[in-house]
């Protein structure tokens, strides 16, 4: 990802997450799920599934740009830098797959 695109991804994902965090926070403050069935049914709603997917897509791409910046600032030897970025990339992709599995398995 080039500099300008990374910058844009970081900003767009940030605004996305700000809006979704405000929504989730308001929900958990004013109408928290009080039992397992209530929590599962809420998570199984299509709208919440989409919102959660968008949130994690934004979160993981934001983490990629942010941690990548940190690695490039402090890890200078090329081999070490490539290793760190590879671990980061695979780690984030694995988490994305994990979240996808969780969301696909939720049934009311």
């Amino acid at each position, binding site marked *: 990802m080039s500099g300008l695109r990374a910058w844009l991804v970081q*900003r767009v994902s*940030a605004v996305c997450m700000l809006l979704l965090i405000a929504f989730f926070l308001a929900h958990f403050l004013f109408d928290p799920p009080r039992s*397992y069935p209530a*929590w599962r049914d809420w998570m199984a709603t299509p709208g919440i599934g989409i919102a959660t997917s968008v949130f994690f897509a934004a979160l993981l791409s934001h983490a990629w740009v942010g*941690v990548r910046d940190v690695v490039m600032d402090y890890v200078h030897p090329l081999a070490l830098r490539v290793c760190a970025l590879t671990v980061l990339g695979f780690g984030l992709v694995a*988490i994305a797959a*994990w979240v996808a599995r969780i969301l696909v398995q939720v049934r009311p």
Partner: protein
Amino acid sequence: MPVGAWTSITHRVTGVFLALGIPFAVYVLDLSLQGPQGYAQAVAWFDNFALRIAAVALVWSLAYHLLAGTRHLLMDIDMGSLLPAARASAWIVNLAGLALTLLAAAALL
């Protein structure tokens, strides 16, 4: 250290904390959706005092990162990018972050 520099490095450090927290958050989400037992286990996690402390630390990281990030976004559109305003908003980020954390601590501890 000038308050702006402190805010910049803390924004970065909280970002790394939050990134490290992602697998734990996904684990709790997974556990809470694995049936009534998993849900009870996830809820019971919050009975543990050490984990409540960790939750408060995570709230501070998140609050700080969101506030400092919003300050950045506003500066991107040229709001408050001159030094006196930037210094004032850096103070606001630090103090509001602390206030939100105290609120979370009062609720959780």
